[in-house]
């Protein structure tokens, strides 16, 4: 056989082997809220499918969506729906963002466990984050300055909170902007005057959840939509998820996967 045909065949073989090898690896990037669900589900899935390697990064929903657009992630974890701009940009690059709901969540309003405030209205939350309400005594709490803690703008949790609680208004410039749910939980836990918002899966004993409009975020109120800050959590893929990708997402949506969702502190889809 001619030498050049052998070389071409070897290159093709190499390319195919790379492509095949790649198909056994799944990369996820994005929301820190979805992160614990993705991680726990991945561990359970890889136990059953040891030939599949799932790697998961955080960074925020915006980062995950950009990674899906750039082809550097198979799954974009997102705690919000994609915007028209993001969908348009993705489609023009040949990426067809397809959402899969994997869990329900309520954005919990949290304060220091010593704080006596048990309920806040959406209007009060907005005024606290806008800086109009500066002291807990203005909402029936102790005489203590309020320390506003928020998420960075790459966060899907921030976007949903901004839409549902703030109505697009500006967060006070003195607010601390933190990069993860964990950071918000630990900062509120160590700040007596602190207030923050996190996914239900990040609640700890160091912080206290307050009701919103007199409604407690729980399975019932999130599933029936009565909790004002309820939302869906998503995994976005390029087109319909097939192969290992489809199998992994189907696993999360299955009863076994939804059990993991609940174990992680979130709400099952049904």
């Amino acid at each position, binding site marked *: 056989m001619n030498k050049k045909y052998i070389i071409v065949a070897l290159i093709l073989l190499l390319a195919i082997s790379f492509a095949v090898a790649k198909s056994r690896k799944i990369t996820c990037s994005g929301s820190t809220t979805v992160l614990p669900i993705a991680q726990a589900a991945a561990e359970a899935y890889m136990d059953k499918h040891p030939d599949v390697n799932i790697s998961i990064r955080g960074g925020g929903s915006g980062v995950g969506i950009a990674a899906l657009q750039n082809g550097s992630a198979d799954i974009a974890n997102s705690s919000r729906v994609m*915007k*028209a*701009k993001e969908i*348009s940009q993705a*489609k*023009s690059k040949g990426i*067809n963002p397809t959402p899969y709901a994997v869990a329900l969540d309520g954005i919990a309003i949290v304060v220091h466990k010593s704080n006596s405030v048990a309920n806040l209205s959406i209007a009060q939350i907005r005024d606290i984050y806008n800086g109009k309400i500066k002291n807990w005594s203005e909402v029936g709490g102790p005489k203590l300055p309020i320390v506003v803690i928020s998420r960075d703008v790459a966060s899907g949790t921030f976007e949903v909170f901004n839409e549902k609680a703030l109505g*697009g208004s*500006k967060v006070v410039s003195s607010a601390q902007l933190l990069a993860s749910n964990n950071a918000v939980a630990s900062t509120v836990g160590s700040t007596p005057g602190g207030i923050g918002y996190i996914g239900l899966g990040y609640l700890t004993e160091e912080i206290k959840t307050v009701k919103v409009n007199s409604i407690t975020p729980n399975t019932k109120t999130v599933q029936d939509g009565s909790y004002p800050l309820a939302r869906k959590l998503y995994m976005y893929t390029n087109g319909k998820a097939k192969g290992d990708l489809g199998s992994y997402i189907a696993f999360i949506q299955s009863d076994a996967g939804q059990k993991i969702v609940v174990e992680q502190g979130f709400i099952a889809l049904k």
Partner: protein
Amino acid sequence: MKKLLLATLVGLFLLPALLGALELKISGEMWNRWTLEQGKVFADTSLTAYKKEITKNFFSLERGYVGMEAKFSQSMKGRFTVDIFSSDILKDGAGLKLKYAYLDFSNLIPIPDLTTTVGLQKVYFGSIYDWSYNLIGKAPTDEYKYANSADYGISLNGYLPGGWGEYQLGMYNGEGYKNYGSNLKDNIDPAFLANLRIVPTAGLTIGGSVMTNGSERKLKLADATENSSYNTQLLADGILRAAFGPLDIWAEYLYKDISYAPNFSAKDYSATCFSVFPTLKLKSLIGADIDLQGRYDRSDETRMPDSKKKNLLNAWTGGLNFNFMADDSGSPALQAQLNYVRKDYDEDASGTDYANGKKDTDIVMLQLKWRFASTIN
């Protein structure tokens, strides 16, 4: 250097105010380039015979973008970008251009996904506004002088629901971001622009832009005589993009119609340019983050009234990009680019003055590009 110092001082002055913003991001990119060019030049003063010689062989900082983006509220943000470079202006070691300085308002007009942009901003014409320099060369619109990449003005930038595409309407000075002083002040004809891109299905984009513009400021000069240089321009652009798997192909068609005042109507002319630029991403095939780039341009300016300047150009570019670091979203933070460009001018259809007297050229460019972005507040 004075300008650089001034810009630094202005930046330092603005910083405390910007730190009060909801979010402040600092970003930049540097393009360090080596250029080697060989071209045909006149062999002697008879201007009839040609010889081939190396006409360029230098290292330069082609771009040094440094910018700040301040988010003042969920509906308002600003961007400020300067370009520090060594290639165009060598005086004092570096040139300085103001590239962008604008404010985005997302709720000024109550239409979903619509942003109003005010200030020195992108010109949403053809491929120029999202040209990402996968090839070292400029976008065809910029390369062949159809429109400027940035200009002072106001624009409406929107996205169609469901990710079906985008649209822009804009009013600009029409002079471009490099113009200043009396050139700007004496301009009485704004440029008007409309741009639409439709994405009917993932991977397929169809778009078009139209812009009207007046050039050389105004018809009547100070002494009431007619300005023979004044002209009106109609610019049009059509774009087709197909991106499927590792292959991404753009095709762009440009048209410009230049009309002079009635007394100078003999100068009226039109020009066209057709370009194709494919990209093959090898990452999914071989694992390495390497992109192969190609480009073909056919620029036809044979109808120019000045016979010395008319030209018909065929240009081919082959390129390779190696992305060896990426940020969290997969965008390259460090990129090495190698480009070979061959420019052939049709001898029968081209005059003597095109390309500044230089004839067919071969250009090799090697560029190291690095980017950074950090949120500091």
